[in-house]
């Protein structure tokens, strides 16, 4: 009876695994098929032969080289900036005493619950135009870095709270200023949580669609991967470029996937602790 029950359990779980993996597998195998084969292959998942022609075409002809470069550039600077600003703000909100601390903190946190959605996109674009950064990737980077990340703030703040105060008191007595304590004592201790934040924001920025799409509407050569791939769908020859789009999706998914398989623990930690503590 017990074995029977276990069997059913495993069949259920494995079926679910299959459903979960199917779309990705479809895209992966599809990306090796020619367009002709994609359209007539019916219910066959596996390609007749693994040809990387699609990738070569996408890379050379369809500008995916540019898109990938844009994505890497955008993600690198955004993540670096987000990590710095969350570390700084998290420390200040944890250890610092300054007028208006509670009000500012409450305001920051409330951004999590107020649903602004698409309302801020257009004014943001206007501000970017005003600063003349709407035609470069820096517009998006600045939006990413300077926006309030309530979850990241929570993560750093509670991490700093868990560091014994004696450590920075000792440093203060030795004559370190508040900023010096941060730079030379607290920051090195923050490494694990900053790694988590880096990974989560890498995921967010790499996968983001709406903001970069709006910013690159008039300058397609600045589009990151996700925007570039999806934009193929809306062009006239969409039906003839399924293979390119599938190759494009894989180019965008694979780096993420590799990172996820290697650093799985950080992903899970960052995603769950952020929400539960928040």
């Amino acid at each position, binding site marked *: 009876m017990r074995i029977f029950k276990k069997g059913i359990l495993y069949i259920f*779980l494995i079926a*679910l*695994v299959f*459903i*979960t*993996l199917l*779309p*990705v597998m*479809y895209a992966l195998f*599809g990306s090796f098929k020619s367009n002709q084969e994609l*359209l007539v292959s*019916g*219910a066959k998942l596996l390609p007749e032969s693994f040809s990387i022609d699609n990738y070569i075409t996408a890379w050379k002809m369809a500008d995916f080289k540019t898109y990938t470069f844009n994505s890497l550039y955008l993600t690198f600077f955004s993540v670096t*900036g987000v990590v710095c*600003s969350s570390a*700084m*703000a998290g420390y200040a909100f944890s250890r*610092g*005493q*300054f007028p208006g*601390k509670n009000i*500012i903190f409450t*305001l*920051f946190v409330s*951004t999590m619950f*107020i*649903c*602004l*959605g*698409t*309302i801020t996109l*257009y*004014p*943001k674009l206007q501000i970017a135009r005003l600063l003349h950064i709407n035609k470069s990737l820096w517009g998006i980077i600045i*939006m990413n*870095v*300077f*926006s309030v990340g309530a979850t990241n*703030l929570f993560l750093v703040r509670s991490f700093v709270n868990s560091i014994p105060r004696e450590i920075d008191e000792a440093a203060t007595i030795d004559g370190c*200023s*508040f*900023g010096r304590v*941060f730079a030379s004592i607290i920051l090195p201790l923050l490494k694990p949580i900053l790694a988590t934040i880096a990974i989560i924001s890498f995921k967010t920025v*790499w*996968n983001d*669609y*709406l903001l970069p799409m709006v910013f690159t*509407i008039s300058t397609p050569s600045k589009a990151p991967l*996700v*925007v570039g791939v999806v934009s193929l769908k809306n062009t006239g020859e969409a039906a003839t470029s*399924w293979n390119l789009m599938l190759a494009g*999706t894989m180019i*965008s*998914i694979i780096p*993420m996937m590799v990172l*996820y398989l290697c650093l799985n623990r950080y992903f*899970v930690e960052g*995603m*769950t602790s952020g*929400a539960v503590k928040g």
Partner: protein
Amino acid sequence: MNLLKNYKKGQSAWCYLLIAPMLIGFCVFTIYPICWALRYSFYEYNGIDATFIGLDNFVRLFTRDPGYWEALVNTFLLTFGKLLIELPLALLLAVLLNNSLKGNGIFRTIFFMPNIISTAIMGLIFFFIFDTANGFVNNVLLEWGIINVPINWFGEKWTAMAVIAMVSIWQGFGINMLFFLSGIQGIPKDLYECASLDGANKWQTFIHITIPMLAPVMQVVLMLAMIGTMQTTDLVLVLTNGQPAGKTEVIMTYIFKYFFNYGGGNSIPQYGYATAGSIVLAVILGIFTAIYLKITKKGTQIY
């Protein structure tokens, strides 16, 4: 004493410096857009000329725009329909994977995997999978003889909505499973021991211990999931773009299209009207959240 005072003064300055990036960002990218929206909701504004028209945008919204309300209804239907399947599934998986099962970690890793893929990219892949003529799903169903004619998934409102919900569930159940799992692991073990000493079976312990002890986690998870789903934008834009004939438009995409042209459309943007729509939406969702918190407050007081 003087030294301490100096130190405190220095500290305040340091703090402001450290939070400066976020503070500036907050003022420029959150406060300013809100003020901007409040102002232009009373204007007719196409990007060049702005004319003050008083409450006309709101009047139009409440009396002459069935599309807005249909999109809002769609959003709520999508949210509840999706969560009705997603959350029980996530809870079931969390309970199952909490046991010491072989391959536990692998299952968890795989179920969470969809969450790391871009929603827009997933929308694109599912667009291929559910394509009428060449899509994988139709081909499989035809080959197995379940259907004779290919189903036009994106041609009917309800099938298209079902596909949207499916992608959304597919992407979201893993993270909710992890939330529930970490909640379950926080329940004290002795509660279960006591229950089993009293002769409670698995189902009884689940109903009388796991569920009530999970209530606080569930309150948060449910709220995050609801807010998240109501803001669905890129998935719908990429997958159906509101087709057929705007029937699968959700509220975010509906408003979005008054701000920006999407998918080859070429209409004149109506910023004033779009901001009025956003403000009404923010108020509706605010009320909704407040009611939700009030209703669920009682259920979470377990200690």
